[in-house]
């Protein structure tokens, strides 16, 4: 789903957009209170995290990001999200010190990541078994009622540029075809 606050979309539930807390679920049967801003699951340590970052920074009211449940083996999106917030990304766009299999942030700019790291505090509740405990942390955050971070940051999705040229006729047949407004083919494999 997509809405004005969360333009990158994804599988999540929007609750109270003025709330200061969003909740990330990892393999957990837990429904947060309705006064969180948004909650949803994350499954991948790359595209999934990009969506969380982009959607969180587009709502400046979100100042806490609570991560709960059990991290997904191998991919470890929860731990990767925590590492992203703590260390950021390197020159290759790899999340520094991330334990996940493919922890790359390729579709978001460095500025968006910086903004995310500044805007929110991460509350790492992975492994906490009692839902009441998670509820308690959510309530505490809401009580603190921190101010909005300011203006929304609408992250632009980076469009990949290929580092190779399409020279093979066979591949060109199936590669992306760009057509102009008159319906004429402008290019292939771009």
């Amino acid at each position: 789903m997509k809405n004005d606050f969360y333009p990158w979309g994804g599988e999540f539930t929007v609750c109270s957009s003025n709330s200061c807390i969003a909740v990330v679920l990892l393999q957990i049967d837990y429904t947060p209170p309705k006064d969180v801003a948004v909650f949803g699951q994350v499954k991948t340590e790359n595209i999934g995290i990009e969506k969380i970052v982009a959607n969180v920074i587009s709502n400046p009211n979100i100042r806490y990001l609570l991560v709960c449940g059990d991290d997904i083996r191998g991919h470890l999106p929860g731990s990767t999200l925590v590492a992203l917030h703590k260390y950021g990304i390197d020159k290759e766009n790899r999340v520094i010190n991330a334990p996940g299999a493919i922890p790359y942030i390729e579709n978001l700019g460095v500025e968006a990541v910086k903004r995310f790291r500044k805007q929110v505090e991460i509350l790492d509740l992975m492994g906490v078994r009692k839902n009441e405990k998670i509820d308690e942390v959510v309530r505490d955050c809401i009580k603190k009622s921190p101010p909005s971070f300011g203006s929304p940051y609408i992250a632009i999705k980076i469009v990949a540029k290929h580092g190779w040229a399409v020279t093979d006729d066979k591949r060109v047949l199936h590669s992306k075809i760009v057509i102009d407004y008159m319906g004429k083919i402008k290019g292939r494999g771009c």
Partner: protein
Amino acid sequence: MFFKGEPKLDEGKEQLEKMLTLSRLTGNPAIPDFFIRKESYIEKIVDFIESTLPKKHPFSIDITVPSIKIKTLWYLHKKDILFRTIYNSIHIGVTEEERKALKNYTPAAAIVVAFNPKDNSPDGKIEVLENSAHLLDKGLLAIADEVGIKNVLVDTAALAPGENSGASVAAIPVIKEEYGLPAGCAIHNVVEKSAWLKNFDSAAKVVDASSNINIPLFGGDYAIFGPAENAGLVFPIIAWEDILISEYTENYFGTKPRENHPRRKFFK
């Protein structure tokens, strides 16, 4: 085959036998894939494979954690069954240690996943096979070659709806034409990620199983389906699709189906 928690091998054996029977009935070859979640399950699952599957029957091992991958390779080597092992998988998260282990204990085949976090189009998938989208020192196909993998199966990396999910099937003919390598994917994962389907209780399982026809329709060579209990639906569906395609390709290209093709099984 996913074993949730402690592997229930009796159930696993039953599912395996059912799948192999369906394979015989329809003529479509079946290769079981075993997900190994924890290090403590390695011996249990590999021993189960060795004792349950027919001798020389291929199988694949699906592992996400590099350290468990490495230990499993060693154990498969010890059991002398690497010659029928498909390694699932080599992707851009492959570690140096994993590459060393693959060199030392080389499986017969590997699934190479064409997932490109920079570009989810068919061209992006080619890019990751060619040069790892510059995230590694060389392309994934070159890495497979370097570690000594003789047989590569390309997985076109099915992504969620909204992430160019269709590119996984669109990439199949592209990759086959470009490299001549067998290609397929786990298209049913797209169904799992279609949250809206949960509103249609009775449809979810049917859509999951029938999503697999997209692979042969686009010329794919293998479908990674799951869970194993869906075999009863998936095998007849794929056989049905194979008959449809075979009639067309014979009429148009003159390609005759092999002896154990579903069309030969059911229309003698």
